[in-house]
C-alpha cells in the first residue's frame, strides 16, 4: 500500500475524499507509467485522494473482486458506485475531467 502524496499543500474544497485502487502488473512499462501518472493526478486534483496500489501478480483475488480484465486500471472504490478507467492514465486531462477532479481555474 502506497499512501497518496502526503506533501500536498493545496487547500481542498469541501468535496469528500476519493478512494481508488490502481491495478498494475509487475513493473511493465504501462504499469510504471500509471503509477507515475497517479502521483501526478493527486497533485493536480482539487479533492483529497487516497489510493492503494495492487499488483495483480501478487494479489489476484482483489483484481477478481473488481472484475479487472485489462491493466493498468484505476477503480474508484468510494464514494460508490465504482468507476473504472482503463489505461496508463497518460491522458491526464481526460482522467481529471471524467472523475470531476479538475483543478479550479486559476
Amino acid at each position, binding site marked *: 500500500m502506497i499512501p497518496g502524496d502526503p506533501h500536498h499543500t493545496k487547500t481542498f474544497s469541501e468535496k469528500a475524499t476519493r478512494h481508488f485502487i490502481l491495478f498494475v502488473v*509487475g513493473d511493465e512499462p*504501462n504499469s510504471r507509467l500509471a503509477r507515475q*501518472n497517479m502521483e501526478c493526478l493527486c497533485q493536480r486534483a482539487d479533492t483529497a485522494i487516497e489510493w492503494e496500489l495492487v499488483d495483480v*501478480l501478487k494479489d*489476484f483475488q482483489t483484481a*477478481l473482486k473488481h472484475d479487472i480484465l485489462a491493466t*493498468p*486500471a484505476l477503480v474508484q472504490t468510494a464514494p460508490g458506485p465504482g468507476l473504472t478507467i*482503463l489505461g496508463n492514465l497518460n491522458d491526464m486531462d*481526460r482522467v481529471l475531467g471524467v472523475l470531476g477532479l479538475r483543478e479550479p481555474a486559476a
Partner: protein
Amino acid sequence: MTETTRAQPIPKTATHIRGLDEILEGGLPEGQITAVIGGPGSGKTVLGLEFAYRSALAGEPCIFVSFEERAQVLRRNAMAMGWDLKSLEEADKLFLMDSRPSPDMIRAGDYNLNGLLAILEGKTAAMGAGRLVIDSLDVILRIFEDSVKQRDQIYYLVDWLNEKGLTAIITARSIGENDNLTNHRFLEFATDCLIKMDFRVSGQIATRRLRVVKYRGSSYGSNEYPCIITENGIFLLPISTMGLQQAELGPCISSGQTDIDETLGGGYRRSASILITGSAGTGKTTLLSTFAQAACRRGERVLFINFEESIAAMTSAMVSVNIDLQPYLNDGTLRMLTAMPESMGAEKHFFQAFKAIEQFQPDHVLVDAISATLRIDTRQAAFEYLMRLISTCKERGITSLLSNQLGTSHSVIDEISGLGISSLMDSLLLLRYVSHGPDIRRAFLVIKSRGMAHSSKYHEFTITDNGIRITGPYDISFQAAADQAEIDSPVKARRQKWGDQE
C-alpha cells in the same frame, strides 16, 4: 516427414464429449490450444462449457472465462442439460470467471490484457487447473480499438497459454464480422488444433455442423459432422468412425409366421439387418408387426420406429389382421417411437432413436418405412441417418427390420437397394403385386438372406384376418412380358451381384 520416420503420437486430453474424441482421435492436444470458430448459435459456448464441465467432473480443475455470458446464465443453461456447475464450483474443480467487459469503460492511455493473464496465473495455480476455456475471444478484443493492438493481445494470450502448458479452448465468432478476419487468421495460425462449427437452416430445419480443419501432429476425421445440442450436451456420432464390420449373425428367429420362415430357410437371423421392400399396401407393416408380436411373445424387447402413422392408427389397423400389439405396449416389451419425418432434422431423429436404443436396450429395432426418411431432408441426410441407425444396431447385436416403400418415380432397382444401404443388409425381401390372369395378387421373394438356404422363388401370399398366409409358389410366366423386363431382370441382376459378393 520421411516414410521411415515413425510418427510419435502426441499426448491428448479427452473431452468426453460424445463423438468428438473419436473425430479428434483421442481428444484435444494436451497442453496446447484449440481454437473453436463458429457463427452465432453454432454451439461453441456449449462445446467449451461441456469440456469444462466434464473435465471438472473427472477431477481435472478447469477455468471457464466468459466474456460473453453472465456466470448465472451459464449455470442455468448448464442445468438445463443436467450439469450441476454449482457443486463443482464449490468443490473448487470449476471456476466460472464472469469477465464481461463493461460497456461504459473509460479509456485513458494504453492498456493490455496482462491483468487478466495475471489473474489466470494466480487462479490456475490456486486451483491446480490445467485446463482453460476462453469464450469468446472476439468479445474481449473489442475493448482494443485498433487491429494491431488486437493482434498483439492474441499473441500475448497464446504465448502465455503455451508457456503455462495449459490445455485450452479459445472460441471466436465468425459470421458477419469481416474486420475480425485477420484476427481469426492469426488465431488459426497460432493454434495447434482448429475446429469450425456452423449453424445452417435449410428447408426450415436447422442443423449444426462441426469440422476439424487442422490438427498439428495428429490425424483426425476430416469430414463435416452433423451435431446436435441435446438435453445432455453436444452429440456427434460420426458415421465414418463407426465400425462397419459385420457382427456375427445369431441363431434363427421366427418371422412370426411358419410358412414365411420356410421360404427364408428357417426364419430371420438374430442381429441381422433385414430390408423389406414393397409397393404401398403389399403388407410391409403387417410383416413387421407379425415379427414384433412374435418377438414380444418370446419376451424380447422391440423398438418400433414409425414414420408413417400414429401408435393408435397402427395398432388398430393391425387388430384387423389379428395382431394385437397393445398388451406389449402396456407391459413395456414393445416401445413405439413415432415422428413425422418433417418434424425435425436428421440429427434429432437419429438422436431420438439412439437415445431410445440406449435406454430401452431392445433386442430388435423395426423401422416403418425408411423411404419416409427422404422427407426429413436430403437424400444424403436420409442415407446417413439409416447408415448410423443400422451401424448402431449392428454394434449392439440388435436385429433391425426395415421396410421400404416402392414409389413410382425411381427405378425399381434403386429402391430395392433401400437408398443405397443394401450392402449393409443381411437379408433382402421383396413384396410386390403380381398379375394372375385378371387378378392382382401379392407375391413375396427372398432376394438374399446371408447364411441361409432360402427359397429363390416368388411365393404368393394373402393378408387374411389372421395375418399373412403364403398360398403357394407364384408362376412367373403369368407376369406380362413388359412387367418382367422392368422388374424381374434387374432383380436377377442384383441377385447375381449379391451372389458374387457372398
